[in-house]
């Protein structure tokens, strides 16, 4: 008897090169087009040689905030995947696999879990059709609309023509037919979708989208995971939108080029991860000193050093805060959702030009590379504010004129009557260097104050931070950026248990909104931070800026995103025990491996499988 749920979770696992991303994306997109909400997270595993990839996709008839932590259906593209996750499939679920690749026995999965093994070669005549055939069986078993997948197959192979489309469609139908004949309908079903075809994207494309909406015309970058997909997405739209994309020899060049383009009046952006940002460091100060508007995206990954290239972490907040010598205005934005990736990038470009300073956008792999449905963004009236930009400067124009707001109107190179030099050395209002021959302490003081004053005005126009959920909750979860949605869902889960929590998740990190954050924190009964790092960087920043301490802490630095259950469990413990002393807890993702698992010696794998390694 099928149980109708409001959501279900599918994992597609295999090794790198098995086509997980395309199979997973096809499934996610088919669902988003069929009226479901989708959240997909692609976890790159690298415990075993050859690498292991698993796409976690959760679909629902309501908004799904995270990848979830249950496993209803597993598509195991290799034996390794089956070994890892077979036992995690919940009763009523199923495992889909290719019997040409490995054999599976009922005692390798939990009770009431169907094993749906497809003889792919016999069915489709070609092992390359494995993923398509398994998707067919999956769609049939889940009772989802097959036309969405058929449509995607036609789109995906449109350029290759009928010769490729036809066998894929046939393999898909054969997979469906096999499941219809040889398997029971899945016991875990999700109710019908609402018929809306929802957009599906990740944080990087949404930042790219926001940049294009904001009129960004220059993107320079050096490849680095997880920022590379921003480069790829943007370059895909370069021809259509007139964006110039410049791949550079290193990140030093990437930011300096963006500064050069911005200096002559182009809206320019660069993107990287922590290591590349470290190289950009000196130029961040250059943008600050020369008052050049530039947007820098830092998609964090696990550090330090090369760290965990394909894993997530919120470990670079202090790097962003401290990047470059000396003091200068900078803005740090930490979008929490896909919509905010779009909106805050547009806002970032406007802030950069209005206050003529570098704007840093901090995301992480979890936000940048996820796939999630969203309900649309504002594309009709995009607010574009270029700040004080002079076309015809008056006589006596001074590039760095001291003004009440500290903002000096900009005349771009090429403008007659405003010739000036912009220097990274300290300079006076005319741009004349006062670092060497004409040292001038009062002028230095004046120029320093002029620049820093901009931050006071900028701070006033930032949207106020707010608490989500009941104002009088017993526990406030405190975080920043990408952990927003897991905290929101934890809050809902706790509510169902009769426990009361709310969420304070910051997105404007610098200049710090000291007054508002202090006021909010002082109104909290009990607080627990949720941060994907070891040292609690946000809580340190909060303490530094407000003198207030968050009481308890939940941290994760294993590279995988927080699982919903982990946040709920720790919050529940805190709520129930009300500890007097601070509790600092850390959690780790369970790889799902049996304790005695060995990829070489496991008898379940057999001779056939060992060839894969």
């Amino acid at each position, binding site marked *: 008897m099928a149980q109708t749920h409001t959501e279900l979770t599918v994992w597609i696992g295999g090794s790198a090169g098995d086509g997980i991303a395309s199979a997973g994306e096809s499934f996610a997109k088919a669902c988003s087009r069929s009226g479901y909400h989708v959240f997909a997270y692609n976890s790159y595993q690298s415990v075993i040689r050859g690498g292991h990839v698993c796409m976690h996709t959760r679909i629902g008839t309501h908004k799904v905030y995270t990848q979830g932590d249950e496993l209803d259906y597993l598509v195991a593209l290799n034996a390794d995947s089956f070994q890892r996750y077979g036992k995690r499939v919940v009763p009523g679920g199923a495992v889909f696999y290719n019997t040409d690749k490995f054999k599976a026995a009922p005692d390798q999965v939990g009770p009431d879990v169907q094993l749906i093994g497809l003889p792919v070669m016999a069915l489709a005549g070609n092992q390359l059709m494995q993923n398509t055939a398994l998707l067919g069986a999956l769609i049939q078993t889940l009772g989802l609309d097959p036309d969405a997948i058929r449509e995607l197959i036609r789109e995906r192979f449109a350029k290759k023509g009928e010769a490729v489309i036809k066998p894929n469609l046939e393999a898909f139908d054969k997979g469906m037919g096999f499941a219809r004949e040889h398997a029971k309908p899945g016991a875990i079903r999700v109710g019908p979708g609402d018929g809306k075809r929802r957009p599906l994207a990740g944080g990087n494309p949404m930042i790219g989208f926001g940049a294009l909406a904001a009129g960004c*015309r*220059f993107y320079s970058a050096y490849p680095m995971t997880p920022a590379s997909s921003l480069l790829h997405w943007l370059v895909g*739209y370069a021809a259509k939108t007139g964006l110039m994309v410049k791949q550079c020899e290193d990140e030093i*060049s*990437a930011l300096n080029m963006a500064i050069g383009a911005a*200096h002559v009046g182009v809206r320019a952006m660069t993107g990287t991860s922590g290591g590349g940002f470290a190289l950009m460091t000196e130029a961040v100060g250059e943008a600050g000193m020369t008052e050049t508007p530039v947007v820098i995206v830092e998609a964090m990954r696990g550090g330090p050093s090369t760290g965990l290239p394909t894993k997530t972490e919120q470990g670079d907040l202090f790097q962003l805060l401290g990047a470059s010598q000396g003091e200068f205005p900078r803005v740090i934005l930490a979008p929490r959702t896909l919509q905010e990736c779009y909106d805050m990038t547009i806002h970032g470009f406007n802030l950069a030009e209005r206050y003529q300073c570098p704007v840093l956008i901090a995301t992480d792999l979890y936000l940048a590379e996820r796939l999630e449905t969203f309900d649309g963004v504002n594309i009709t009236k995009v607010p574009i504010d270029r700040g004080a930009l002079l076309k015809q400067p008056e006589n006596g124009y001074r590039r760095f004129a001291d003004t009440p707001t500290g903002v000096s109107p900009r005349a771009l190179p090429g403008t*007659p009557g405003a010739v000036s030099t912009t*220097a990274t050395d300290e300079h006076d209002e005319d741009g004349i260097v006062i670092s060497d021959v004409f040292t001038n302490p009062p002028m230095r003081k004046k120029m320093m104050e002029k620049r820093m004053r901009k931050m006071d005005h900028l701070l006033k126009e930032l949207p106020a931070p707010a608490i989500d959920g009941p104002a009088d909750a017993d526990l406030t979860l405190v975080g920043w950026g990408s952990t927003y949605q897991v905290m929101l869902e934890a809050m809902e889960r706790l509510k169902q248990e009769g426990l009361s929590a709310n969420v304070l998740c910051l997105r404007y990190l610098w200049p710090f909104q000291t007054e508002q954050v202090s006021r909010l924190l002082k109104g909290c009964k009990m607080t627990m931070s949720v941060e994907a790092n070891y040292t609690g960087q946000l809580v340190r920043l909060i303490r530094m800026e407000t003198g207030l301490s968050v009481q308890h802490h939940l941290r994760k630095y294993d590279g995988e995103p927080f699982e919903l259950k982990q946040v709920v469990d720790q919050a529940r413990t805190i709520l129930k025990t009300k500890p007097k002393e601070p509790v600092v807890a850390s959690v780790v993702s369970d790889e799902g491996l049996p304790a005695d698992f060995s990829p070489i010696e496991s008898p379940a794998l057999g001779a056939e499988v060992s060839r894969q390694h």
Partner: protein
Amino acid sequence: MAQVKEYIGKIKPDWCPGCGDFGVLNSLQRALAELDIAPHNVLVVSGIGCSSNLPGFIHSYGFHGLHGRSLPVASGAKLGNHALTVIATGGDGDGYGIGVGHFVHTCRRNIDMTYIVMDNQIYGLTTGQASPTTEKDVRTKSTPEGTIELALNPVALALSCGATYVARGFSGDNLHLAQLMKGAIEHKGFALVDVFSPCVTYNKRNTYPWFRERVYKLEDDQQYDPADFRLAMEKAFEWGARIPIGLFYKVERPTYEDEEPALRSGIPLAKQPLERADLAALMEDFI
């Protein structure tokens, strides 16, 4: 033709009396005047070092950036507004030391701009350490027993990396130097003008007389053909009793801007309207 004085900045150079960089500044002002390029259409970008102070002394737009990073800033500025005449300036430490990575890649990109390196074979502003072009065995403040490393060869490096105009001048011959700069600015593509620009304070070896005894002009040899890459490479390695100056190599190749899709309309990026993306179509692609 414009007057040279139109390009003279408000600030007098703070270089040591006799510094080779004076000749470079004068030659550049002369070249710009002869080419009649209005000061507001010129952007001079520099790094850090004695010679990188040049943008402060010339009447044009200037960007005095970070040590070694003049070329990426200049590249971004040129790609952002290719209607501007963009000239990068700096020294041998700035361009061939800390910034050599950018130099290599800028050569192969062939962006239409000029790079003038005031090569004094020493670090001047930091008071006399060995630079990438200091000759082997020369004693400096940082190499009291003589340098162990070989000197870098800027002309050969530029040639091998694909620069399309490669010249070397001597700031003891300003008229000649100005002509090389003029040719560089007029050239469609990336042009290097490496200039022997003696440091009178810290380099007691490579002095004006030292160069005067050795330099000769390539154009004085009727047989020399700057279109011949092999010959240029051969001349690039001539060093010692006779050292060639002049135009080593010149070739026409499409510039980066010529081939960049975003510039097909010919309108500089900075002048293009901001609202160009069809956001509704982009949104449709997410579905």
